[in-house]
Each structure stands twice: as C-alpha cells, then as structure tokens.
C-alpha cells in the first residue's frame, strides 16, 4: 500500500481544516514553528490581539497588533491564548496540535484547556508584526479576483471529504 501511495499523483497531503466559527478568532495557523493567530478584541472592533505559542519550548506571547502588551498576561497565558488553543483544536483536531507543539498529552479527545495545562514554557516576546502581516496576507486572498479560465493543475487537488 505504501508503494501505491507513493506512486499516486492525487494523494491528499494536507487534510482540509474543519469548519468553525470565526467571529472570536478569525485566524489560526500552525506555521513558522508556532501555533499563532489573531484574536478579535471583545470590546473594540478595530483592535485585535496577536497570540502565539512556540513549538517545543512553548514560549508564549500576546500583544495588540501595535505591539502593546496584553494586560491579561502576567507570567501565565491570558484568555486570548486560551481561545487561540480552543480554536486550534477545533480547526486542526487535537492530534495535529499536540504533534506540532510537541506537547506531552494523550491527544485523543484532548480539550484546549488540557493542552494549555501541558505547556511548559514561559512568557516570551514575539514580534506581533510578523504574525499580523501573515493574517493580512491571508485576508488579501479574498480580495483577489476569481477566474473563468480553466486551471488544469487543479486536477491534482480534488475536493474531498475523505482523507486517508
């Protein structure tokens, strides 16, 4: 079977993310060696928090997109980081999050809260600008025009419910 998988042109490599409500945490990603994302402020619709947790070291950070430190961070994760983790579990499944961050937890059925409790890191400063610009880049896709000309390369990318 492994051989057949390796000889296949159309095998799925990245499982599609699961649908989730985006109002509170519009952006979550496992990238650049971090779980990182953007959390909308509950009180000011123009303000967002940029939160991240590093893989392996579990160093965490949270600040506004203008680099003002989050008031909720006092040597331990704030509620924005809690939300980030909850949504990451919804989006990717606990399995992928545990593997990416190298958390020492039984992944089956793990909740965001359990994963937060397994963090061993301390507060670090991560430049919010990097993550925020990735979010803006992400949003910019929605501003690109569509096309009515065929993209034959997409035969390699079937839409699929089943990922083996």
């Amino acid at each position, binding site marked *: 079977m492994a051989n*057949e998988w*390796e000889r296949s042109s159309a095998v799925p490599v990245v499982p599609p993310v699961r649908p989730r409500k985006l109002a509170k945490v519009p952006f979550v990603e496992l990238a650049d060696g971090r779980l990182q994302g953007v959390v909308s402020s509950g009180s000011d619709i123009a303000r967002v928090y940029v939160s991240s947790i590093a893989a392996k070291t579990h160093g965490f950070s949270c600040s506004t997109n203008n680099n003002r430190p989050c008031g909720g961070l006092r040597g331990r994760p704030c509620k924005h980081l809690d939300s980030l983790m909850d949504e990451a579990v919804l989006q990717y499944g606990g399995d992928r999050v545990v593997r990416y961050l190298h958390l020492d937890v039984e992944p089956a059925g793990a909740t965001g809260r359990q994963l937060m409790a397994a963090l061993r890191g301390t507060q670090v400063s991560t430049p919010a600008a990097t993550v925020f610009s990735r979010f803006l880049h992400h949003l910019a896709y929605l501003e690109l025009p569509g096309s009515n000309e065929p*993209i034959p390369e997409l035969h390699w990318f079937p839409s699929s419910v089943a990922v083996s």
Partner: protein
Amino acid sequence: MQGTQLKALQENDSGITGALDLIAGFDDALVHGFARLGEERASALAALAAAMAVTPLGERVGEAVEKVSAGSIADEHLMALAGARAALFGAVHDALLSLLDEATGRRRALWAAPAGAVATEHPNLLAGSRSWLRELAIAGWRGVDHDLVSGAAQTLQAVLAEPALRRLAVLLDGLAAELRAASPISTMERLPVRRWADLWTRALLLSQPGAAARPEPEPVSGRLLILGVDVHEHATVIQLQVHGILESSGDPRLVRASVSAPKVDTIVGLAVWQLLQQHKVLLHALARHTSLKLTEMPLLPGGDLIWDDDKARPDGEADPFVTARLVLPNASAPAVSPLQRHPAGIAEPVLLEGYTATDVSVNVSGTELTVAAGRLPLCGPLTRELVAASTACIGLLRWDAGRWLIQPLAVQATTKKAQVNVHNGDWAQGPTDLKAVKTEAKALDAVSVLRERAGRLLRT
C-alpha cells in the same frame, strides 16, 4: 459503458510500465536532491537520457544529465530534465487515452491549434519561481525545511497578484502549503514522491516564458447539456469544472466550463458556493438540472469554454442521466492541449449502469472498477454511502497509480426503498437537506466574518 469495455481497458497496459520506471528514477533523484545524486540515481537519470536520445529533446537531456551528475545544476539543465519527464508522461497519457477512446468508441479531435507566440512578459516573476524550484531540486524533498519553504513567500505573493500567472500561482501555493505542512520532511515516514515530482515538473514548465499563453478561442452558440460538476480545491482556491455536451452545428461535443475563486483554508464545505455567486446562471443550471442556451461563448481548442454568464441563459429542464444515456454515446471529445498531457488530467465523462457497488468499488457485469473515493467533494451531497447504494452513475474515468478509477459526479441509488438521483451540484444554490442547512449557516458566517475583518484591517 459496458463491463466488457471496462475489461478491455484494464487488461491492456500498452507498454507504459517501462516509461513509469524511468519516471520513478527521476522522482527518486528529487527525493534526495540533485546535489546528492550518488551512483545509483545518476544511472537512473542516464537511463532517462538514453530513452530520450532519439527524440528532439535527446541532445539537451543528455547534456543536462551529464552536467547535473557532475554537480553543475543550472536552470536550463533542470528545464531539460523536467521536459523529459513531462514528455514521458505525455506519452503515457496518450497511450491511456487512446485505450479509453477505443474501449468507449469515442471520437477525439486532433490538436490543430498553432503554438502561441513566444511571450516575454513577467520575466522577473518567472525567474523568481524557477529559482525557488531550483533550490528545491538541489535540496531534494528530504532536505526541505521551514526556511526553504518560507523562501518562496515573496515570489509567491508577487505571482499571486498577477492574473496572467494564475495557473502558476495556484500550483506554487498548493505545493508550498504541502511542503510547509510536512516540514521538516527529513523525518517523514513516507513521501508523496510521484505527486510532488508532478507538481514540481508542471511548475517548472509553467515558469518558462510563454508557457501560460493560450490559443485563440472561437465563439460557439448552441445548447449546453450538463453532465455534472467536478470540484477542485486547496487551502486558497476553489474551482468548479462543469462537464457537458454542446449541441451546435455538427456533432455534439464534450466541453467543460471552469470557474474558480481564491479563498482561505477556513472557508470550506458549503461556503465555497458562496464565493462563486457571480456565476449565477451556471450555478442555477447545476442546482435545477436545466440546459443552457449559449450565444457566442468563447471555446478554447482543448474543449474549455471561457465562461461568461451574460452569454448563457437557462433553457429547459434536462436530466443529466438522460443526457448521458442518449447524447453522450455520440459526443466527440476535444483534443488535449500539448502541455496538459499528463495522466492526472484524464477525466472522461462516462455512464455506468446496472452495477453492484460497495463504497470502494463498482462491479459492472463481473468487472471491478475502483471508486475514486478521495474525489467526493465537501460541498455536495454525494457520499460514500450513496455510492455504495447506487446502481448507476455519471462519472469521470480517471487513472492514477497504475489503475483506472471512477469518480462519480452523480448517482442513482436506492435508500429507504426510494430511488434517488443525487448530483454533486445539487447544493449550488444552497443545501436542500435540513442537516446541511445548519452547517451552511456556520459556513456563510465564515465568509462574512473574514470579509468584515478584511474591510476593517486591510485598509487602515
């Protein structure tokens, strides 16, 4: 399509095994990187060069293998190697397609369009893309890490912003996302060896000046009878490819209409229809099973309509199964554009009837055919359960990993003693199923939240 026709298709391999072995040798070199070829992989490349020797590419491929084996890896050498791999797969594609045409009795047009003019647009963007692909080839998949993947970001962003390079952009973005998700690849247990070599090769071909140039379309008018819709997607794009039959002057002919939209990974499932709402006439025809009257719609020589909603209007009701039974057997197929000759692009509409099915295969009078279960889209009502309960389907014949597959686009199935017809495009105007309506609310919410965030944050 009859069981005997399927049997004839599956029993003949037309000598493609030898070509696939040569391709596997090249793909293995990409796994470990051209900087670390070693004796065994160098001799696999030499075999590739020997096989190409009598072709017009022969000399260039021979020289490329020599230089690359000696450690000099230039753009032109990689291009020659990619060309050799593409030519081999082109030959495999042609052999498979002629088997299929023979088994189904399908007539196919010959490619007659003139080669596009040599274009010189966007030299820097194409050079940037080639340079990243070269780094990948030197490092090999095993040597790819976060830095190498991130190295593509700037080029990618610039390529994405250029509509003329959309095909390349979509491909590079898809490949980069897979490499990012898999990094560090050195520790991966197994690699999608064939797939990544396919994507790398096609990307390098599309990074040549003029590769994206398309031949001139001709305007066509007549009635379009829809067979079904195939859905393609990765994190940042969704494409609908509608297969249908155009009745105009002359024989009915198979055509496709493709519309696509950029998206992000969190817009999945039912939400994707929302992104394609500007093609209302097309979506309406999919959801309501109507034919369309086309007036002066541009058609490319490869059988692709350049869709324009203003040049189509709804016609009468037209059951795709009736179309497949009565019109499909006499429809002729378009020629395949030379650069698109790869087995992964084979997607030929067929009708299968009177079979028994499981969720992994159908049995047509004693001949088994595997179901492409990985191609049932997230945004439609077609499920593996429905396929297992079906006795007839309109599907696309595909070929992957050495075997033929059927990808259902629509099935006739018996559930709870009632017979139902279920099509991929049934939810094009919103779900018709109560459970799906709830899921849709969540999906639509995703699109509006992100549009609101984009409106507020991108312009401040």
